């Protein structure tokens, strides 16, 4: 009788333990599923917010681009120059000095001129020393 009771007690403990494990498993799966779903929603919400931010920034960017274009337009710049009396304008042809790129012949001529000037100065110095 005692032995039978001991057997029944050990059977009950095993069943309860298995049941608890099964319940825990089911609960864990349920919580995991909910957590996972929650993550999806949170991520979706974040995406939505970022999309809205991006759209707002694109709108603002277009508006600023139009403003910048207006500020950069030659007519606007000219008007502002007039307003502030800056008298800024492109130089006229007569106001410009154009420098010709030196050619080899021109450089040779320059060297000859410098040498002839130096030799003339040297000769004059020698003459003065002799005197």
């Amino acid at each position: 009788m005692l032995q039978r009771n001991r057997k029944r007690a050990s059977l009950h403990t095993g069943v309860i333990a298995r049941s608890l494990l099964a319940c825990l498993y089911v609960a864990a799966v349920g919580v995991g599923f909910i957590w996972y779903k929650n993550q999806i929603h949170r991520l979706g919400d974040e995406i939505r917010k970022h999309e809205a931010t991006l759209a707002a920034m694109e709108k603002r960017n277009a508006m600023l681009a139009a403003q910048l274009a207006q500020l950069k337009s030659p007519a606007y710049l000219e008007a502002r120059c007039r307003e502030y009396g800056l008298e800024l304008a492109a130089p006229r042809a007569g106001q410009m000095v154009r420098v010709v790129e030196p050619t080899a012949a021109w450089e040779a001529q320059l060297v000859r001129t410098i040498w002839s000037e130096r030799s003339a100065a040297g000769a004059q110095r020698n003459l003065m020393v002799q005197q």
Partner: protein
Amino acid sequence: MTLSNLQIRAAVVVSGLSLGFSVLAVRLVQLHVLRHEELRAEVARVHGQVVHRQGRRGDIRDCRGNLLANSLSTHIVTADPQVAAPQAVTIAQQLAPLLGMSESELVLKLTRGGRYVRLKPKVDIETAQKIRALKLKGIGFEDQFARSYPTGVLAAHVVGFVNAEHHGVQGIEAAMDDYLQGHAGYEVIERDRKGREIRAWRTEGISPRDGYHVVLTIDQVIQHIAETELDKAMAAHRPRGGVIIVTRPKTGEILAMSSRPTFDLNRPGNCSPDARRNRCISDVAEPGSTFKIAVVAGALNEGVVSLDDRFDCENGAFVYAGRVLHDAHPYGVLSVIEILFHSSNIGASKVALRMGAPRVYKYVRSFGFGRKTGVALPGEVSGIAHPLSKWTKLSITRIPMGHEIAVTPLQMLMAMNAVGNGGRLMRPLMVKEVLDGDGAPVAQYRPQAVAQVIQPRASILMTSALRKVVEPGGTAPKAAVKGYDVAGKTGTAQKIENGQYVNRYYSSFIGYLPAGDPEISILVSLDDPTVGGYYGGTVAGPVFREVAEKVAQYLGIPPQQLEPEAASIS
């Protein structure tokens, strides 16, 4: 066998649970299987929504990427009068300064009944945010794009504008509408109880596609130079209208195209239809003496004349086919160079007579007259070049002086470009490329030669003759640009009104520089100048000089002749 208490209790619990689960199962089957479609539709109706999103219309930019047109996101401020009406006065007081409307007008709209009323369209984002912050009941917003033209009147005829449906109706807006137009998309979404989208439940959708950006060959600085000088000429000579076109002869690229009168692109409705007409491509007129270039170039190309050949200009009165042809001043015997130099009508007619009508007609057509140039702008006309079969006996003496033929300013400039460009007639190029949102090219447009009208030798001969026009004693010394080698031709064409020539004129000058290797060509034409003369050389020549000098400096075209002081400094 009797059941123990425990067994009875267990049986009751199991039965109860079974019954409960059975009820639940039946209910689930009813909801998910039997009434599935009905309930699904109900949920979709309550929470679901199909949101249509419009793609942004593409930008129009100049050749350096400066913005000429773009689309701005704006809002339409709406109201639900049923909700807003009880506080109409308070709402109107708060909205009136922000919307720029009167309170009485707003109160009227808020109390007119119904569930929807538009208070104001095209409200900018910042104003909309201010209104949102007020948290007014019954006030809503709808997205809307508004076309913006930051440079206002600049290149108005080229850029064009859109209608209320955002479709281009003029200029590049119309010509490139297919590229510029954004494509709408949609999304099927669900909203929560607060009306926010549940992003994770977005089921299907097609993203909207923004329109492509169109890059023009127009340079906004050159366009500004042309328009400023044209405005000055309009003020100085008081013509009915005027045009200036600047191109690159070698490629046919149009750097500037201005037409007067003009209009503000941001308010296209506030002007007459006449001001919206692009005279560069849609107005035809007899070209006058500028047309001599086509006939003389043809004669030189055919070898019918040389520059030194001499023609008797009959002292200003030449009788042909029973009619007298006059020159502005009487001339005796002139060489071909002198015919262009003095712009002798009789001389040009005699050159044409030596060529013969069929060959004159051949060159009229070869230079592109009587057909559209193919510029990427709507509203271009072909002009009038009568077929040879319709020529009268007089035609061969009248066409060389630019009568009995009607051309557009652009046609005339492209013909002059062919003369300066070694005889190659180019197709005018207005659109450089089409870009997608990332700046990658979708389409690129290359210079396109239409025909080799005259041989390079004839082109060189013509250029040497046209150089003389801007020299002292020529018809346009005022068109000479200091330091630059300029070739050009004046035109003073009498206008026709009610079928008769009247004392009103089209004054024009077309020229290119540097003459030996042209970088730019410019056409200036004024319709009926009433102050300060009417000869092309007197009226249009100085305008040409001003534009040419500034454009040459801007583009860094080196001068051909250095001034003495500059040369000595160097």
